[in-house]
């Protein structure tokens, strides 16, 4: 037959719901916007510098690794940008440039690319990077020291440092409403609680993050903090304080639900979140670290492959097969 029609041949199924990685990443980036803009308004130009440097260097590292490993260039999927953005959101507004670049190197190269790129990493790259920097240069990540040049019309202390040093006595100047609106020192994109909550709810409704993880993470914080608080209200702060300070909200909505480092089954997701919340408060109240969220997430990342084995049994096939 002369000149037959050339058809596209591929495998079933021939329908797709249209979801794609980049769409999800860009939506998560969009969801951070409220919190990021609030941070920029609060901290001004230096924060913008940190933010752009972080996003830019993260993408540069990704490109470099793509070239080195001779794999398709993947900066278009937005994941590197998201990693850079989330990393910057955790940082104080005033940090040296080399710290940002090292951080994104650790996040993108060691946290993600050496595991084979997106989906391979067993730990959240952003959290790994931040934890490593926190060990190396705690003085640059100390919010009270970093933000000393800023004049705010509210108590400009990092609530958790005050809490660690003076117990509940240091917390009188913080009101839940103020904390929710970002009247606290903290990371560029981690203080404006309301923005993070709105962004998180948007992502949950759109199905880009799992509500099971976010909700159970916050529930874990709430329950544990409540228990401590009831046991000794003089020493241990209440649950609302714990949820609205530090990295609790950004952790619950943006760090813990990261796909590659979290479980996928229903019960494991709940356990994962609850354990994360529990550890967060435990480390804050008893541990050596000021904010427990980073390590709590690392630990739940670590246990996720094992708890994800708690899953319904696969269906037994009953059809007869020749």
């Amino acid at each position, binding site marked *: *037959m002369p000149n*037959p*029609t*050339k*058809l*596209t*041949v*591929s*495998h*079933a*199924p*021939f*329908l*797709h*719901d*249209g*979801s*794609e*990685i980049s*769409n*999800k990443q860009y939506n998560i980036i969009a969801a951070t916007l409220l919190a990021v803009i609030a941070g920029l308004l609060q901290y001004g130009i230096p924060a913008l510098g940190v933010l752009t440097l972080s996003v830019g260097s993260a993408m540069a590292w990704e490109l470099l690794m793509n070239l080195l490993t001779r794999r*398709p260039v993947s900066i278009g*999927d937005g994941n590197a940008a998201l990693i850079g953005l989330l990393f910057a959101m955790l940082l104080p507004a005033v940090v040296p440039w080399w710290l940002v670049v090292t951080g994104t190197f650790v996040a993108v190269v060691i946290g993600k690319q050496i595991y*084979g*790129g*997106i*989906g*391979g990493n067993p730990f959240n790259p952003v959290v790994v990077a931040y934890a490593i920097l926190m060990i190396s240069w705690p003085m640059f990540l100390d919010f009270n020291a970093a933000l000393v040049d800023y004049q705010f019309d509210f108590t400009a202390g990092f609530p958790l440092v005050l809490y660690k040093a003076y117990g509940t006595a240091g917390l009188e100047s913080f009101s839940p409403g103020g904390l929710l609106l970002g009247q606290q020192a903290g990371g560029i994109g981690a203080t404006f609680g309301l923005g993070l909550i709105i962004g998180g709810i948007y992502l*949950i*409704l*759109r*199905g*880009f993050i*799992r*509500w099971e993880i976010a909700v159970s993470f916050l529930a874990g914080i709430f329950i544990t903090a409540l228990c401590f608080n009831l046991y000794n209200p003089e020493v241990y702060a209440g649950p609302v304080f714990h949820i609205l300070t530090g990295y609790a909200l950004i952790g619950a909505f943006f760090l813990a639900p990261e*796909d*590659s*480092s*979290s*479980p*996928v*089954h229903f019960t494991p997701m709940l356990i994962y979140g609850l354990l994360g919340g529990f550890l967060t408060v435990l480390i804050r109240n008893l541990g050596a670290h000021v904010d427990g969220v980073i390590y709590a997430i690392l630990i739940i990342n670590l246990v996720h492959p094992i708890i*994800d084995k708690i*899953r*319904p*049994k*696969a*269906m*037994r*096939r*009953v*059809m*007869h097969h*020749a």
Partner: protein
Amino acid sequence: MMKRPFFGIATPKLKYDVIEDVQPEPVSVQPKQRVTLFIEKAYDRADKTLIKKGDAVARGQRLQLFDEDPAAYALSPVSGVISEISPFIGMMEKQMTAVVIDTESDREDDRDTAFKKVSGTPSIEDAARFLGRLPGKPDFTQFTDADRTVKTIAVLGADRDLQAITGQYIIKSGISSVKTGIDILRKITGVQNIVLVVAQHQVQVAGTAAAGVRSVDAHYPSAHPEMIIRHLLAEQAEQGQIAFLTAEAVAGIGAAYNTGELPLEKLITVVKKDGTRQLVTAPVGTHAADILGAVNEQVENGDRLIMGGPMTGDAVYSLEHPVEPDTDAIMVQDKEAIVEGTDTPCTNCGECVRICPANIPVNELVRLLDAGEYEQAAEQAALFSCIECGLCAYVCESRIPIFQFIRLAKHAVKRMRAAEEANA
């Protein structure tokens, strides 16, 4: 139409299409020039075939390939002359033989009478011998297999795949033939418990067929035999005790014994590029080009032609591909609408796990398959629990062709195990 909803908190559900109350009569299509038939047997001893190139065949004639293998046959839907016999490789390296018959319109009335002679006394042997390639492809080996005792026959009047309405139309318009078929099945198989499984809106119509009626819900893949057993017939779920036949096949059996003539017109749902549907009847073996021409559907370079439904069908590379006895739908997809698969790794988002009707840990499975660990996938990640519905690949945000991975892996493992057994 099939996109992810804006609010994606719940697991997406794919709904089966429902036949309209006023459904236009199917368009009748006749093959132009030639038909192609597949015989499920390797064409490996070309000199020993019973049929030869140049043989004249009559409508309804059994075309058996080898003398010692009576199960490898096709039914000629037309009268004509065999113009070509050649090997054909189907999906998963399946070795088949393609037989091309040039139709001769002047021999239209020449009918094969072999079946008519035995149709007075229905028997399972004759049914297997003559009716196994009727439209709907009834599998009579289910009853002759010594390893299993069938206690229930499920007649599937709902459509397995999305967008097709073939099964529903049979129930709507041919319920009396289905009833006759069921009566004959009772007689020839000895199985008394016959259940008619239909879509919810057709329960009343189906009730007239004097059989137990069950309805499947509106969400894909509830009309899949595995899901029907699991949800509707769980009490009889012993391995191998339930046999499945499509309503079209049962109606065909009824019609065949009623008239002594073999019904060879296949009912097909044609889904056009714009998503509209058209029912068509055409002899088994009719080329897709003839059918698409009859419904005025233009196919261009880069479009996709799918034999079967959108979730489980096969994309074919030629418009000359024929309708097979079990091709319920023919679908044309515009090149703009095609979503290509990618080589991106799994991001562990878990959508596949949540949508999988068989509770397979698909995320783990796909990682194992990506690393080539097929045996481990079978042991740890329930590879063989897969019922091949295709939903995992439908929701995959990395656009991994998971469904194809799974089919390949199953094929590889089966072949490996067979080789091991042969060596043992």
